[in-house]
């Protein structure tokens, strides 16, 4: 018997990404004002290119600062509705940035267990 390779495709989780930036949408439950990139909290990265004003849907880009987890959230009171109510804190979007290509680290032949 000869050694065989496992040919099943491998899947990785969708929370991983390797592009330099990724786009994010922020959707409010009602029309708000006062929403700027300074109202976006990003760990291990920065937010930029915020588009949208006065409406309830905004988009912006997140650029990681380094390898590893990147989180995006919006703290409370960053945007206001028509009555002046600040928003509630958002849930946190978390993704892991990995742009390092895998390298082969093991080249030792394995003995045939059943010659």
């Amino acid at each position, binding site marked *: 018997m000869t050694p065989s390779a*496992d040919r099943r495709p*491998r899947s990785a*989780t969708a929370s991983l990404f390797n592009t330099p930036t990724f786009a*994010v949408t922020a959707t409010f439950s009602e029309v708000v004002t006062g929403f700027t990139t300074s109202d976006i909290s990003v760990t291990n990265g920065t937010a930029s290119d915020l588009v949208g004003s006065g409406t309830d849907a905004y988009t912006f880009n997140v650029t990681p600062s380094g390898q590893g987890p990147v989180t995006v959230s919006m703290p409370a009171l960053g945007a206001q509705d028509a009555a002046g*109510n600040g928003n509630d804190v958002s849930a946190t979007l978390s993704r892991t940035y990995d742009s390092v290509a895998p390298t082969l680290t093991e080249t030792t032949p394995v003995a045939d267990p059943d010659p």
Partner: protein
Amino acid sequence: MSASLGDHSVTFDTLAEGRHNNCTLTVTDRGGQRERPLVVNAFDLDVTAPAITGVALSSSALKADETALVTVTFDEPVIALHGSDFVEVDHGTLSTPVSTDGGLTWIATFTPTADVEEPTNVITVSAAGVVDLADNHGTGTFSSGNYALDTLRPVVAIVRLLEPSPIRVQSRLPSPIPGPTRSP
């Protein structure tokens, strides 16, 4: 005013409302003999029902975490104003009304209901349950001006655009894989 023999009370039915001072009663007998005037203590005559002249809120637009003062004004002091006298309080609650001027004006704190967006609201007070200092029951109701409520905070959902499909990695190895060569 009338009186008859043997009565021990005198009924005044033509006196004006207000303070009556220095009153005396003079009795004349059938022989025309006038008795010495009897001095009557000063008294106030009040037969008018109290009425509400104003219901005002300190703010006509409230957002989350805000409250307003509600001031109820009467045309004369009343003994007590209770929460049950507020017959309509839209989308909120009131504290116990308090008066600091002897009962002419009463102030309560209005706290709006959370998570409400309603532009049309009113507070209505009934005077039927109050009495003035002479025990006259009040009449009528009075409604505040409109007030708008928005106590609903915006919420925000943050999602990544174009979430990629799971990454699929296909191994590409020759088959069969050459094994180590055995020496004869």
